[in-house]
């Protein structure tokens, strides 16, 4: 065990910063063009546009340390916007369970960020209990396509998505985890209706999506019929790791410290306030621990192991810390946490802080609520049996 960076790692860090600085957005530039060019340039570096993809599919094949360096360096810079659903979520499933034809058909567009994806999992009656989903996919008599009917909810960015990866029910027999089928289909077609849900912060990112007789060719089915649950479960573990956001939290905490230093408290600043200071310190301690939990998890992944129980720890702790940072930001704003609706009043971080705090409440709900995460750890790690529990 040691934590010293090798000469090669230090060189890698320099290469990363040179790339990021050299390709940074310049004010006035056409953003959409810059964005696609950025990914192109990153691809030319040898898979830097898809750091987590396996080398066999064009990923860079980085060591855990290199991933860690990349995350650290990118957390402090403005990268082009990127939804997690394509590169991070559906692509690994297509790589693992899709056939060669599907891989050739979908992966290039996902990688180029020219097609936006959304995730059709949760339903009004199937939230934490995802396997209770009811959206029906019926195979046509000639066996050429499925007909999909039902509703999805909390579908992030469905309103701008071109494609959806969707869990559907093809059979109601046996256990509810059986009979679930993984389908891919376009969003912009008749029979797909997207309605916005306005969340606490007043913003529109999630939606309900209704399907009425949507035809999906069988070649858009991933893997076998009825095995979708197995495929999705692997992805959920993957998704949960990605939600920890350690580097981003470290950056956010530093920012909060700077901001609090400018908030006056008597003759000093908020940083002289003992209770604020200790909250800040406690957050930092938790993050220092989580940073190493993540490194341990990365090392395990590099050794070829599946994301393990630590991925559940990552999501639980990571989201809790994100929420606490958001909350402490509102406390730093004091009376100025209340103004809303674009009022620029008080410290410049105040209104964004409140927005983040409200938005952060969803972090412990989506991607597997914290209560479900704890069930998973209890069952899979501690080997405990739950009473009256179906999962």
């Amino acid at each position, binding site marked *: 065990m040691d934590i010293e960076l090798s000469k090669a790692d230090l060189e890698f860090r320099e290469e990363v910063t040179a790339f990021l600085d050299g390709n940074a957005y310049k004010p006035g530039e056409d953003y959409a063009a810059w964005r696609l060019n950025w990914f192109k340039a990153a691809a030319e570096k040898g898979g830097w546009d898809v750091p987590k993809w396996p080398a066999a599919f064009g990923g860079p094949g980085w060591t855990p340390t290199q991933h860690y360096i990349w995350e650290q360096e990118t957390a402090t810079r403005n990268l082009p916007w990127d939804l997690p659903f394509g590169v991070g979520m559906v692509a690994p499933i297509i790589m693992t369970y899709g056939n060669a034809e599907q891989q050739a058909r979908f992966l290039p567009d996902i990688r180029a960020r020219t097609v936006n994806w959304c995730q059709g999992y949760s339903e009004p009656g*199937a939230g934490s209990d995802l396997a209770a989903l009811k959206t029906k996919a019926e195979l046509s008599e000639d066996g050429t396509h499925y007909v999909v009917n039902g509703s999805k909810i909390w579908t992030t960015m469905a309103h701008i998505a071109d494609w959806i990866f969707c869990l559907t029910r093809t059979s109601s027999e046996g256990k509810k985890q059986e009979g679930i089928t993984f389908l891919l289909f376009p969003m912009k077609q008749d029979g797909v209706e997207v309605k916005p849900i306005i969340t*606490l912060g007043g913003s529109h990112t999630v939606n309900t999506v209704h399907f009425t007789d949507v035809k999906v060719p069988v070649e858009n089915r991933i893997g076998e019929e009825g095995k979708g649950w197995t495929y999705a479960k692997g992805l959920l573990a993957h998704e949960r790791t990605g939600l920890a956001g350690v580097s981003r939290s470290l950056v956010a905490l530093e920012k909060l410290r700077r901001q609090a230093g400018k908030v006056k408290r008597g003759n000093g600043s908020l940083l002289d306030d003992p209770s604020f200071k200790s909250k800040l310190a406690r957050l930092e301690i938790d993050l220092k621990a989580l940073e190493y939990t993540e490194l341990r998890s990365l090392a395990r992944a590099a050794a070829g192991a599946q994301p393990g129980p630590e991925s559940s720890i990552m999501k639980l702790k990571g989201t809790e810390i994100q929420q606490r940072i958001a909350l402490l930001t509102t406390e730093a704003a004091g*009376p100025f946490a*209340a*103004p809303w609706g674009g009022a620029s009043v008080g410290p410049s971080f105040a209104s964004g802080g409140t927005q983040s705090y409200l938005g952060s*409440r969803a972090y412990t709900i989506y991607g597997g609520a914290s*209560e479900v995460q704890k069930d998973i750890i209890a069952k899979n790690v501690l080997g405990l049996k739950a009473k009256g529990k179906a999962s």
Partner: protein
Amino acid sequence: MNFELSEEQQLLQDSVARFVADHYSLEARRKLADSTLGYSEDHWKQFAELGWLALPFSEEDGGLGGTIIDAMVVMEQFGKGLILEPYFATVILGGGVLKRLPPSESRTARINAVMEGHMKLALATTELQSRWDLHDVVSTATADGDGFVLNGTKSVVLHGASADGIIVSLRTQGGQFDKDGISLFWVDPKAEGVSLKAYPTVDGLRAAELTLEKVSVPSDALLGPLHGGYEILDAVAQEATLALSAEGLGAMERLYKDTVEYTQNREQFDHPLSDFQTLQHRMVEMFMEYEQCKSLLYRATLEFAQDGMDASKSVSACKHLVGVAGRFIGENAVQLHGGMGVTEELAIGHYFKRLFVIDTQFGNADYHLERYAA
């Protein structure tokens, strides 16, 4: 020892509860919050007719001679309905100052106008640097001939833009943090040099930034003793803190009860959510925090009724717990409602946001913990 409401207080509680039930459905509230004014003038007229606006004023002033306990009764019910009208700003804050002033013609006229529903008030104390320290004042009033000239900025003035009169704390002598040397002034929002920038707050209420630029006022704009405004402010702040705590308690009750009901109806894993022990225990904790808040609210309110300012430690204890418990209950109500909890569609999110704002008013949980420990 008796913690029951008197017959009169019970009637008052029933009447406010009925008003809330009749006029404050989530949909009705949403419409009002989105309107230009942000509340209803018709409701305000009813408040006057029902005597609620006359509640804290003494019988000599033509009021009902209500106590802090009556204010608690009203505010708790308002908390259950998330009332938008400027009752707190006008009656508790503005009225709280007016009733503490020595007799004068203008005092009588203003109190009458408030009670009749013709005058709304605001209290402007917060400054950019002050956080919740009422004695941290840099905006000034300078003697000028027979009157004063006012200069400075006040922030997050609750319902400032709909007020007919704004009571402003200004420095008339001493340094930035001196309690001695703060005076209260009556400012007409329409006077020259007064500007207001109005905006909504995250809970759907309204506030404003107040700027005073060389505002000339006559000598009778000074309210109460010159340099002696802090004592009045401090007393009003105690009442305000209790009133907000009572409102918070009402919101907490709705949140924990709605959550208990929701989890019994929502099925996941072939069981109602309420079957799961971990969720049951969470709701038990929400309930316990609520009951503890209620106890401290009673304690602080009764002590304040009896001992006045000597009760300030209990008042801080109460606001601290309201801050902490309000956060715990609010966040868990949202969490247990799952995705639905983070939408604008359910009442849950709106109560959660009101509790969030209550913690930003007259001192948050940490602020009052520090005051308590001092």
